[in-house]
């Protein structure tokens, strides 16, 4: 390149004054407007849902909701203490199964066998489990528990929910373990600790807050799910007597009461929605708050 003046375009500088064509500019602004409008459109249904849940759910909110049983069809008064209790019991059962299993498997995948064929298989299976519709967890628990014990029960509902949240716990625990800096392990090995001591005394405590995040997210999911408990725990008008009995839950109560022709039952369904959304939101916020410290 000799770079003589004749190589430059004649109107090299005059071009800069030329305006971008009106059509292009118009199209640019139009698309920006469209994009913003579509994004804001999402606010409408969300506000509608939140507004209606609060508006219809709030009037009934009192301690009666938590302490009393649902009224008979056509009657007013009462609450759904049994459903709140049932939801808590089933979420508890599901955590009892899936938390130990999920965390142990995450430790195996990330600490003992990372990079192995088995580890990638476990990850793949967890991914597949997240893709399975929640109702399939219910179908499985129906086949495995309800059909063998011949009883709809809180246990069956809890097992269905456990399968649903297992991948959440496994995958978030794995991320939590990955978040622990490798230097921690080297330091532990450096002072002569065994792999077992390193994992259980150093890595796991360090990863615990992030693992708890996964657990809280799992609680939020399990509490809100209806399909897996619909025909495993069924429903009950009474207080839970044992985990081998049909059990009420908030979500099934909403489903059952939503289509009843009684005004009071529909109000109860809205109140149950309010409490359910509150539980889910609270667990989600807790998850974010616990996750806040360290390594991220």
């Amino acid at each position, binding site marked *: 390149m000799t770079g003589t003046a004749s190589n430059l375009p004649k109107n090299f500088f005059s071009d800069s004054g030329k305006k971008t064509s009106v059509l292009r500019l118009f199209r640019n602004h139009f*698309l920006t407007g469209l994009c913003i409008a579509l994004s804001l459109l999402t606010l409408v249904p969300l506000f509608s849902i939140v507004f209606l849940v609060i508006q219809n759910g709030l009037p009934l909110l009192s301690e009666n909701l938590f302490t009393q049983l649902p009224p008979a069809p056509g009657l007013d008064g009462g609450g759904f203490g049994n459903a709140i209790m049932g939801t808590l019991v089933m979420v508890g059962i599901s955590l009892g199964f899936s938390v130990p299993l999920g965390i*142990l498997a995450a430790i195996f995948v990330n600490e003992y066998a990372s990079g192995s064929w088995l580890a990638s298989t476990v990850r793949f299976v967890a991914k597949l489990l997240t893709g399975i519709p929640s109702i399939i967890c219910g179908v499985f628990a129906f*086949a495995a528990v309800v059909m063998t014990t011949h009883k709809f029960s809180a246990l069956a509902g809890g097992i269905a929910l456990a399968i649903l949240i297992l991948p959440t716990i496994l995958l978030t625990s794995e991320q939590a373990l990955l978040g622990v800096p490798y230097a921690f392990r080297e330091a532990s090995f450096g002072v002569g600790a065994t792999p077992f001591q390193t994992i259980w005394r150093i890595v796991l405590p360090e990863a615990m807050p992030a693992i708890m995040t996964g657990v809280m997210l799992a609680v939020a999911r399990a509490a809100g799910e209806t399909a897996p408990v619909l025909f495993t725990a069924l429903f009950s008008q009474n207080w839970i007597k044992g985990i081998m009995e049909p059990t009420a839950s908030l979500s099934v109560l909403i489903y059952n009461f939503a289509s009843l022709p009684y005004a009071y039952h529909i109000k109860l369904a809205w109140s149950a929605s309010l409490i359910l959304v509150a539980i889910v939101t609270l667990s989600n916020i807790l998850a974010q708050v616990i996750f806040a410290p360290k390594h991220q």
Partner: protein
Amino acid sequence: MACFLASILIIILLAFIIGEILVNAWPAMSKFGLGFISGIQWSPNRGLFGVLPVLIGTAASSFLALLLSLPLGLAIAIFLSEDFFPVPVRQVIRFVVETLAAIPSVVYGLWGIFVVIPLVQQYGAVLAAKFGFIPFLSGPAYGNSLLTASLVLALMVLPTITAISRSSLVAVPYTLREGSYALGATRWETILRVIIPTAAPGIVASAILGFGRAMGETMAVAMLIGNSQRLSWSLLSPSNTLSALLANQFAEADGIQVSALMYAAAVLVVLTLGVNIAGEAVLRRTKKATAGLG
């Protein structure tokens, strides 16, 4: 050792789930064979079990939901990944979309019954009166309809589509934008001709995974779709989906009906697993593709 067992247990669990469903579905499988899938009658009283209308309902509602939510989700993803607005405003929209994902399905159903059904009934009647000659819009217009279920489903899969599309848009290297701007392209010429084509595999993956989610969604659909096994061209008439069928009939079923429902569940598992594996495969290729561009 316990960790090893836990891992093995998780693999066995998936096999056990599929196995248990297949074993219980076997009586229906051997009795009805593939006629189960092509049959158009589902009446347990007469021992007739065919899921074709339900399969069509599943496909139609998921497809319609995707059609509604893909443009919306893509618009939000662009909104979130471009700098039209300062970060706090974008964070609010992101929070809104994440909140949509957190609302339980059954609450969507309750909201749908009292908000979307009356709307669809009212405007559906007008549509049917004016455009009834189009088979998709022929009357009579019902509130519990394919359209109602699809509208709510669209809202429910929106977070999936937005999240995956956004992450693939953000993954487009900044140098590509700079190059495009340097050539004199406007912002939207850059978005439409450079950024979206580069992120296209990720957007396709988001659509596939959103479709998979829509197929599996149960409660909102069961509350809104009308649960009718009759075949109809109209979006305004009741329909049914595999998951809604399971939700509605399992608790009261016995004998061969349980087995037939297990068969339907097996079909649902095959369909959703297939769609999800396809989506994940596309997503994996996206990551490889954009990794080379940085």
